[in-house]
Structure formats: structure tokens, C-alpha cells
């Protein structure tokens, strides 16, 4: 088990380095840039620097920026510097607001975390419960109704459902106010009031996916030979169901961990629709502002969350499935 965890950890570190390198290559070595060129800037002409320098900059200013950012240095030097800074927790400064990217991300993390944790809790509880009941009461009205509900959920894109619900609850019924986000620390009641609709929107699609998956898994497991053995030895139906759930729910752990990891990196669409100042909307803003350090920071952050989620899931899976542990 210990060896297994160490192996996973090493992989996680390698993956993180790969993510950093990829992000670095994409944003620093192949910058989209503004396409403008400054006469007389010579080798100082770097799209990033030109963009940062603002409208009609003097070549000297562009050169200054290039020097300050080290853009005239070879790629590997820039890379080394970037990684070095990163290891000290320095993700650079926003081109747009000049705020340290790290601070911007951490300031916005609570909003994203509120959204992700709340929504994922809802879909986990309801998705799994609906899936179990549907499988155990197969072909009942309850099963058919919830599978229809799930089919609708799987087919509805978040942006559509979100906009419809905003229109309905904010525009018509007036029981929800978009753009009312309050941090939980300042006013928990206002926080709850601002979060319930985004939670439902974000949770619905995944809840549908989870309900269908749990139902399918459980039905499949119920046909396994070891479930027949459990019955043959005279276990009560309750214990037989427990045996089946043990197998059917293990994959849910994997999926949940990964989904949560992805969400913690920012729920771009939901955050944008509901004006939640999270990492997702930070990234969207950064992209429209061509704010490269922020784009870099948010991408990296999201990537690292997925890697951490993978690591946690792998370890959790090993503790749940003995076959993984020993192989």
C-alpha cells in the first residue's frame, strides 16, 4: 500500500511538471499576441511586450518590458525562471490589474469552492439515491419517472438550463437575484440565497449522469455470481443489497473525485451565468483581456486540482478495492 502511494505521488509530480511545461509552451513560446509590430523596436519586438505597453508605445518602453520579463532570454532560461518562481509560490503579476496572480486566484477560490462543493454534494446524494431506488424498484413508476428526469438532465446543456432558470426565477418569479454573491464569511444567509440556484443548475446534469450510472452498475452487479452466492448462503435481502452496493458504488468514488477536481478549477459556464466571482470567471476575463499570467495561473491551478483529484481517487480506490492494492 505504501509503495503504491509513493508510486502515485511520483506520477503526480511528473504530471504537474508536464502541465507546467505544456502551459508554458502554449502561452510563452507560441503567444497569439496582438499581431502589431513596433517600428524600431528591433529584437525587442515581442507581442507580449507590445500588448502590455499599451497604445502606440515608444520602442524604449517595449524594450524595457521585454527586459523586465526576460523575454529576450532563451526559452529554457525563461522556463527555468518561471518554474523557479512558481516553486516560491510566485505566479507572476496580472498584466491587467498588476495584482499578483496568486492573490487573485486565492481571493476567488472560496466562491468556486462554494459552488463546486455545494453542487457536487447535491448531485452525489440525490444522484446515488435515485440510482439505487431505480435499480431496486426496476420498472416501477418511480424508476421510469426518474430515468426520464435523468434523460432530460443528461440532454440539457448547463448554459441553456442556467439561462432558463435565471429568466424564470430572477426575471419572472423574483425569488432569486443574479449577481448577489456574498462570501459565506461575511453573510452566510445571503451566501445561501445566492448559491442555491447555481447549485441546482450545476448539480442537475451530473445528478442525471450519476443516477444513470449507479442504476446501471447496480443492475449489473445484481446479476453477478457472488450476489447469487450471498443469497444462497441465506443472507437477508438487506445484506445482499449491501454486497451489491459495495461493488456498484466503488466506481462512483472515482468519478466523483475527478468531477470535483475539475470543478474546483472553475465552473466557467455556471460562474459566468450567475456572476459568481470564481476562478472560472477569472479565467474567462483573463482570456478576453489577453492577461497571460492570469490565464497561465488559472490553467495551472485547474490542472493541479485535477492531478490532486486523480491522486486522491487512486489512493481511495486502492483502499476500496483490494485487487488494486496488491497488483
Amino acid at each position, binding site marked *: 500500500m505504501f509503495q503504491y502511494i509513493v508510486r502515485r505521488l511520483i506520477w503526480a509530480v511528473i504530471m504537474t511538471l508536464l502541465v507546467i511545461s505544456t502551459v508554458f509552451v502554449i502561452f510563452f513560446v507560441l503567444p497569439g499576441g496582438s499581431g502589431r509590430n513596433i517600428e524600431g523596436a528591433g529584437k525587442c519586438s515581442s507581442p507580449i511586450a507590445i500588448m502590455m505597453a499599451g497604445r502606440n508605445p515608444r520602442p524604449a518602453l517595449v524594450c524595457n518590458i521585454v527586459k523586465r520579463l526576460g523575454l529576450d532570454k532563451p526559452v529554457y532560461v525563461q522556463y527555468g525562471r518561471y518554474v523557479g518562481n512558481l516553486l516560491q509560490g510566485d505566479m507572476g503579476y496580472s498584466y491587467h490589474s498588476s495584482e499578483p496572480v496568486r492573490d487573485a486566484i486565492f481571493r476567488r477560490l472560496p466562491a468556486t469552492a462554494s459552488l463546486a462543493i455545494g453542487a457536487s454534494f447535491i448531485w452525489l446524494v440525490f444522484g446515488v439515491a435515485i440510482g439505487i431506488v431505480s435499480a431496486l424498484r426496476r420498472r416501477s413508476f418511480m424508476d421510469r419517472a426518474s430515468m426520464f428526469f435523468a434523460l432530460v438532465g443528461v440532454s440539457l446543456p448547463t448554459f441553456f438550463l442556467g439561462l432558463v432558470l435565471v429568466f424564470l426565477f430572477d426575471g419572472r418569479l423574483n425569488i432569486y437575484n443574479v449577481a448577489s454573491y456574498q462570501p459565506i464569511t461575511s453573510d452566510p444567509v445571503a451566501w445561501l440565497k445566492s448559491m442555491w440556484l447555481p447549485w441546482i443548475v450545476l448539480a442537475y446534469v451530473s445528478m442525471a449522469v450519476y443516477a444513470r450510472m449507479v442504476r446501471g452498475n447496480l443492475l449489473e452487479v445484481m446479476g453477478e455470481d457472488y450476489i447469487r452466492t450471498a443469497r444462497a*448462503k441465506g443472507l437477508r435481502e438487506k*445484506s445482499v443489497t449491501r*454486497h451489491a452496493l459495495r461493488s456498484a458504488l466503488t466506481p462512483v468514488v472515482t468519478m466523483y473525485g475527478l468531477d470535483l477536481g475539475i470543478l474546483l478549477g472553475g465552473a466557467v459556464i455556471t460562474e459566468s451565468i450567475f456572476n459568481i466571482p470564481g476562478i472560472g470567471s477569472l479565467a474567462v476575463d483573463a482570456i478576453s483581456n489577453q492577461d497571460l499570467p492570469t490565464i497561465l495561473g488559472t490553467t495551472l491551478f485547474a490542472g493541479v486540482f485535477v492531478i490532486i483529484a486523480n491522486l486522491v481517487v487512486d489512493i481511495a480506490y486502492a483502499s476500496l*478495492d483490494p485487487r488494486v492494492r496488491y497488483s
Partner: protein
Amino acid sequence: MAQEVLLEVKDLHVHFPTADGLVKAVDGLNFKVLRGETFGIVGESGSGKSVTNLTALGLIKRETAQISGEILFKGQDLLKLNSEELRKVRGKELAMIFQDPFACLHPFYRVGDQLVEAILCHEKMPKKQAAERATDLLASVGIPHPKERFRDYPHQYSGGMRQRAMIAMALVHNPDLLIADEPTTALDVTVQAQIIELIEKVKTEFNIGVILITHDLGVIADVAQRVLVMYAGRGAEMGTIDEVFKSPLHPYTWGLLESIPRVDSKGTRLVPIEGSPPSLINKPAGCAFHPRCPHRFEKCDKEIPAMQDRGGGHPEACYLSIEDKKRIWAEREARRTKAAS
């Protein structure tokens, strides 16, 4: 001394309605199993061997099947019990082991815990005591280092050990009847012999009845006292091992016997049974075997022959006269031996 009748199946029918039609998996079956004997059931896949026994244990969902007839276990009709009463019999007085020990143990639970669970669902006792009993049982079915093995997961067991663990699990409450549904089919040949031997040992030690379902006639000949040959959900022939193997009376039994290799007459030609098992939805009229039977005559597709003693000394279900049967079997034997020399 008359032996106690443990299980008596009377005119059992198990039909499954499906979209394609009614599947007649078991269609009028009768047999008895006595305490202290090994009762073999042989037949091709789909002949109703497993369905019969799963029905006895109540493992066929009653909502999905039409079941009629009686399955008397120690005088009590299992088909009349409700699910909770049946659960109390299952695993306690009537235990079953299955074909594939790789799939029959839950992969996420320790083998020992699965045994403990089997103990505790019929008998209240402290967990520690149940664990000790489970360890003893593991030892008694020949698992080395039972204390360590108790804590292992099924995937750490070999196939033979898993089947041993399954047998231990079936024995936790000293059942009266053990149903072994192809217990060796999925195992290596060397391990097969050990498992069969273990089942025999268990039978003698606990003085229980064993139903051994298999399509391995060699195993049946080795350990069973009586055997039932099944075809398409019905009995074709039933008798002691000597009766059925030495003087078989049913053409299907002849076919079975000719299709297995024999060490004692090396070089004997193997004669397969022509054709394939019938559809259980549209069974041939009359004797279900008649389309494959080389000795069929007019009567065979008219009426279903009942399994009864037709003068040959043991029950069988073939319309041929006893004289014809004896003559034909003698000829077939002679032809086979001749082909060998």
C-alpha cells in the same frame, strides 16, 4: 434399512415467459435424493439441471417464472414457503456451491468475513466465536494456514482454494443436502479430483445428501450412487451407476456414453450425438430427443414418453421395447469395440 428421503421433486415445471415465447426449462421432472448418497444429474447445457436446483433454493425469481409441482425437502414443500422461510432453509439445511469459484466470492470482502457472515445470518453468536469457527472450517476443507488465509481476499486464493472456501461456506451450518452445480468445471484437472474427493469426504463425515450436477460422466461414475440423465427439461433415464452405465436403456444415454473417451478401451472411436439440443421454446412434439435419435419410429413424435420402469429394471423414457433396447445397445457396443481393434 430404508434411507431417509431428503429431497423429492414431483412433476416440477419451471417455465419462463419471454418475448420470444415460453421457455420450458424444466418440464415435468421427478426424482428423489436420499441421505448419505451422491445423486448425479447429467445432461447437456440447457437441459434444466441448474434451473431445477436454483428453483429448489428459491433463487429463481418467482415473479419471472411459472413454477408448478412440488419440491419436498425433508417433507416440506419448498415451493410453498415464503421468501423469509425459504431464506432460513437456504444455507442452513440446504446449501449450494457453484460452477465458477472465481466469480462466486465477493472480491471486496475477506474470505473469512464472508464465512463469518454466512454463520451469523442463521445463528446468533459473538463475532469472535464465528471467526474461530470459520477458521476451523477453512482448515477442515484443507486450506493451509487457515488463520492467515482467513484475512486474505478471494483474488489471493487459487481456483481450487476458492472452491474449497465455497465448500467451507456451504458447510457452516451442517446442511442436510449439498447441491454442487458443476463444482469442478472451471478448475484444473488435478484440482478437480481434489475437490470431488473433498465433497465425498464431507458427505461421509456429515452424513448428508449430495446432488452433483455435471456433464462429466467420469466424475459421476466415480462418486455417485445414482444418476439422473436429463434431456430438454425432463428425465431421460434414472438408476444406479451400474444400471445406467452398464445397461443403459435410453438412446440419449447411449449417445452420452459413446461420446466420452474411455481409458480401458483405448482407441475406441468417439461417436458424437448428431444434431444439437432442441429449442426450449418450440420443443419437438412427443419425445424431445426423437429428431436426433437414430432409432426413432412412428410413436416417438406423437406423445411424450413418461419416465418409468418399462421392464428394464430402472425408470427411463423411451418407447422402444426392452428387447430392442438390449439388442441395439449390444450392437452399438460391439461396433465400437470392433472399430477400436
